[in-house]
């Protein structure tokens, strides 16, 4: 395998998008990295976890993304070069910490990686598009298209952060994060500095009114300066025949599809490729659209660029015909053939796709692994209750597969930790029996406040904490009670301390004991917890 730490400049090695981000951070001299695992961002943390010691950097798997970002903020305030990585839903969790961080700004340059998953290849809950967060938070956002740009943009993001003292976000998607290509690597120095110093500066780090409003003004001034950078930077670039009356505006992965299709259709149309999503280079776009008759905006998920271009076109070129979401889907990822049909329509080109794909292919759902302890939990519950008479709550983890055919034991599913919070609401609203599942890592992530709420506000769901001693779904990252952790924090002690009286830890291999506990606890007037403790079969191997 390629050694990501090799110091051999101007060499090309094949890297995954996420590995290229790691390499870009190393070449930038990163000191401090925190993350909570989530696909498609997981390999950033996994790679740092493996190399942190050799690279002389600090790395942690934090308890959740909010804590990860807060740790990163502390490191940045102390002057360290910091990287925080997460999937899109993690950004929701840490948004509360992110907005004030953009007000205070950084001391140590800070880059935040957020990975979206169009088409929900590895995500439940929603098909989230994080790009509009730029306008909400006022954080600069860069969007790489391929692993080379993952490396280059990470380095550029650190430079922008250093220059403008603001955190910078890099937004990837599955097809960027999990894309491989030969990447030209650069030189770097191993962990230059790993001790920072927090220097007191109330004006800078305390977001108390009335100072906070001054900070907001300063932030807007900063953003306008970064917009000037955005107007000039080479990562917002125009390619192709500039005399053509038909143009394309695109970014991220759709840019690669546009390039591919233009080559295939033998078209030489001008492309404005945006590497910076926020703050947008308004002048550059106005110049690009000024003389066009038609413009096609190729972007994935909800229209963001398109709305912005429509706004700019009103003054600059009111007759401009603007195409985008009238030809492209709002739901699901783009594919080259979808982009091809939109370009062909706008350019009046005939498209020949030879395909006879109307062939039935059976649907194959993901399954629990052979020997997975969750099979045992499912069996024991089936023996204890009639599943039709019980409401089953789901949460985020491998056990989401309880919702697939053959098990069918999941009546609601939302975000991390929500199974318990929603269970409380259902128990307060109804008199139905309810069993809810939550994994060990998810419990630590966001389940504990919800458990306290069920005790404090008195409802009686049966909560089954599936403790397989790892963060299984994202690739077996450690958590506070995971196997191999030197001083694990016992889940039992946390549950007890939250005030839960009905508590049992059972290895689900003991089927009768498990079934009996389910029956007993469902009859209780107070909240009950069963900790189903059996190690993940993949780790046991």
């Amino acid at each position, binding site marked *: *395998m390629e050694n990501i730490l090799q110091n051999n400049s101007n060499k*090309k090695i*094949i890297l995954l998008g996420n590995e290229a981000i790691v390499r870009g951070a190393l070449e930038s001299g990163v000191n401090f990295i925190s993350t909570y695992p989530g*696909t*498609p961002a*997981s*390999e950033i943390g996994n790679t740092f976890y493996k190399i942190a010691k050799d690279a002389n950097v600090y790395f942690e798997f934090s308890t959740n993304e909010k804590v990860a970002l807060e740790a990163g903020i502390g490191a940045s305030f102390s002057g360290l070069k910091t990287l925080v990585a997460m999937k899109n839903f993690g950004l929701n969790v840490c948004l509360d910490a992110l907005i004030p961080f953009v007000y205070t700004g950084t001391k140590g340059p800070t880059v935040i990686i957020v990975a979206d998953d169009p088409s929900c*290849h*590895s995500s439940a809950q929603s098909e989230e598009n994080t790009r509009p967060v730029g306008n909400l938070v006022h954080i600069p956002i860069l969007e790489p298209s*391929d692993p080379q740009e993952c490396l280059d943009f990470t380095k550029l993001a650190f430079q922008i952060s250093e220059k403008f003292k603001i955190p910078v976000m890099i937004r990837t998607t*599955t*097809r960027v994060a*999990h*894309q*491989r*290509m*030969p990447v030209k690597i650069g030189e770097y120095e191993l962990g230059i500095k790993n001790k920072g110093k927090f220097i007191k500066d109330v004006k800078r780090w305390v977001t108390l009114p009335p100072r906070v409003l001054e900070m907001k003004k300063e932030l807007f001034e900063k953003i306008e300066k970064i917009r000037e950078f955005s107007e000039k930077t080479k990562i917002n670039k125009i390619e192709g025949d500039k005399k053509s009356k038909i143009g394309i505006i695109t970014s991220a992965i759709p840019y*690669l*599809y546009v*390039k*591919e299709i233009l*080559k295939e259709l033998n078209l030489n149309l001008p492309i404005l490729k945006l590497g910076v999503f926020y703050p947008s280079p308004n002048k550059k776009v106005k110049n690009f659209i000024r003389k066009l008759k038609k413009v096609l905006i190729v972007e994935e998920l909800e229209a963001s660029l398109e709305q912005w271009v429509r706004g700019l076109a009103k003054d600059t070129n009111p007759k401009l015909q603007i195409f985008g979401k009238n030809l492209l889907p709002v739901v699901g990822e783009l*594919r*080259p*053939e979808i982009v*091809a049909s939109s370009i062909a329509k706008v350019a009046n080109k005939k498209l020949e*796709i*030879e*395909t*006879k*794909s109307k*062939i*039935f*292919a*059976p*649907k*194959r*759902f*993901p*399954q*629990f*692994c052979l020997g997975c302890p969750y099979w045992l939990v499912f069996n024991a519950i089936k023996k204890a209750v009639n599943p039709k008479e019980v409401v089953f709550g789901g949460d985020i983890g*491998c056990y*989401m*597969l309880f919702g697939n*055919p*053959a098990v069918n034991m999941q009546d609601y599913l939302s975000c991390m930790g929500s199974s318990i919070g929603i269970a409380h609401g259902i128990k307060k609203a109804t008199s139905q029996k309810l069993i809810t599942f939550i994994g060990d890592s998810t419990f630590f992530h966001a389940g504990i406040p919800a458990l306290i709420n069920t005790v404090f506000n008195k409802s009686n769901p049966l909560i089954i904490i599936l403790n397989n001693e790892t963060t299984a*779904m*994202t*690739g077996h990252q450690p958590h506070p009670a995971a196997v191999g952790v030197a001083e694990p924090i016992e889940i039992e002690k946390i549950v007890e301390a939250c005030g839960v009286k009905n508590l049992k830890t059972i290895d689900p291999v003991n089927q009768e004991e498990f079934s009996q506990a389910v029956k007993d606890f469902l009859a209780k007037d107070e909240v009950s917890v069963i900790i189903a403790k059996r190690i993940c079969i993949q780790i046991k191997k």
Partner: protein
Amino acid sequence: MHSNKKIVQFNIMIVGTGGQGQITLLQILNQAAFIEGYDVKSSELHGLAQRGGSVEVHIRFGKEIFSPMVSQGKADLILALEMQETLKGSYYANSKTNFLINKYIVPIPAAKPLSEKEILDNLKKITKNIAVVPAAEICKEKLGTEVLAGVYLICLAVFKKLIPLKPESLLAAIKKIIPEKFLELNLKAFDLSRG
């Protein structure tokens, strides 16, 4: 190295079920194409989908490659590690596409498995270029494990010129990508596919 750029573009799909080693095969082919000086792009999926679900990966190499994904109907080779998954791969096929299929079925719970005949009859509507190879059986018998079927098949594809790469590039790529402790078995799969 870095001289032989004959192929404009070559598109490979590998389809199968989670856990059949698609990502390792993708890495080997990427590396082999890179050794021959081609531009390379690939796309894969990680996470929950891998737990026994359908998994397809895209590998593209040639003179200048932009998209990491193969377009509908544009695959040159569809390598199926599982027979029923071949039908999902057919989305990427045209009349000239080659199918190389592992004679191996992973049942779908609560569904009637499609027979080999049903699957092949469907594929024949698209192309005549279909080869079914009992790779899992051969690897089980000769090497003691069917896990090597994928490596056996990509090697076979190179030897049979279904992939325009040189066997020596593939061999070098296997040595680069496969961890030391599994290398010997993988090299045996390479030799076995040479026939």
